[in-house]
């Protein structure tokens, strides 16, 4: 649901769920990311990939996490939520390979809500994030702690 009103950390309570848009990953996207960051045969070369554990040319696992971040960022921006970063990921699983033409979307569920220090301009939310492909297969699942601007925090205006 789109909104024009800023939503603060105080508003994001456990149980709230966000559905993101989709991003389709092309063969060229896979090759470009791999050339920069993960130049292994199964991300660069179809023939090598067919012999590999993945069974075909597939995206780097870190490409998938980067696309997850884009989906999450766009969704929070659309909701007027001030995302001020993340301090970590307690757990992440790569469950299925992502192949050229796959379309990914994420579901982000708030599972915990924790204040930072008294004078902090943000609070933490812990989120379970699941990324699915177009067939409804889960490709990654993770739990991450996000820093969200608080009401009266004015983090971006110092």
């Amino acid at each position: 649901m789109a909104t024009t009103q800023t939503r603060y950390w105080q508003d994001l309570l456990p149980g709230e769920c966000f559905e993101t848009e989709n991003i389709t990953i092309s063969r060229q996207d896979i090759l470009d990311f791999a050339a920069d960051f993960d130049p292994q045969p199964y991300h660069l070369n179809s023939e090598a990939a067919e012999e590999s554990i993945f069974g075909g040319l597939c995206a780097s696992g870190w490409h998938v996490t980067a696309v997850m971040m884009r989906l999450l960022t766009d969704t929070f921006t659309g909701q007027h939520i001030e995302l001020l970063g993340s301090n970590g990921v307690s757990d992440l699983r790569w469950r299925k390979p992502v192949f050229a033409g796959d379309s990914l979307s994420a579901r982000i569920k708030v599972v915990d809500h924790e204040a930072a220090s008294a004078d902090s301009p943000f609070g933490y939310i812990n989120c379970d994030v699941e990324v699915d492909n177009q067939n409804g297969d889960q490709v990654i699942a993770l739990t991450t702690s996000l820093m969200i601007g608080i009401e009266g925090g004015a983090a971006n205006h110092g």
Partner: protein
Amino acid sequence: MDKPVYIRSRWFEDLPVGEFHVFGSYTFSEKEIVEFGRKYAPQIYHTDPEGARDTLYRGLIASGWHICAIWMRMMVDYMERFATGVQDGRRNGAGVGFQDLKWLKPVRPGHTLTFTYEIIKKDERVIRDRWGIIRSRNEAFNQYGELVFSFEIDILAERRPT
């Protein structure tokens, strides 16, 4: 087309717990930080060197996922060098997952990270007839010696054929 050359290294059985490597150093440029931010994490503190001054971070910082991607690149480059001359060792396997990933300090343009890993655990379960799982603790330090990034990753490693 030439037969693709796999990066090969030691079999699962030959990787000792406790082995420690300093495997790469990388200096982050403003241009690369902004490019990655625009593509994958479009927030002003990742995309706009001027605008970032007025944010919590008081300047441009790299996306945490950019740090992860550079970790991967350093690891691949190191494995290639380390594997030089190895003809029949294991092929690199896929990552299964990771835990306890922490982004502890901002990484800014011009910062140089040095990456280390230590093998901390071997999972003896046999997966799909031929793989074991190696767990390593990975850390990155900046040029001031501060720990900025750490995590533990599980990677499939091929077992010696019987």
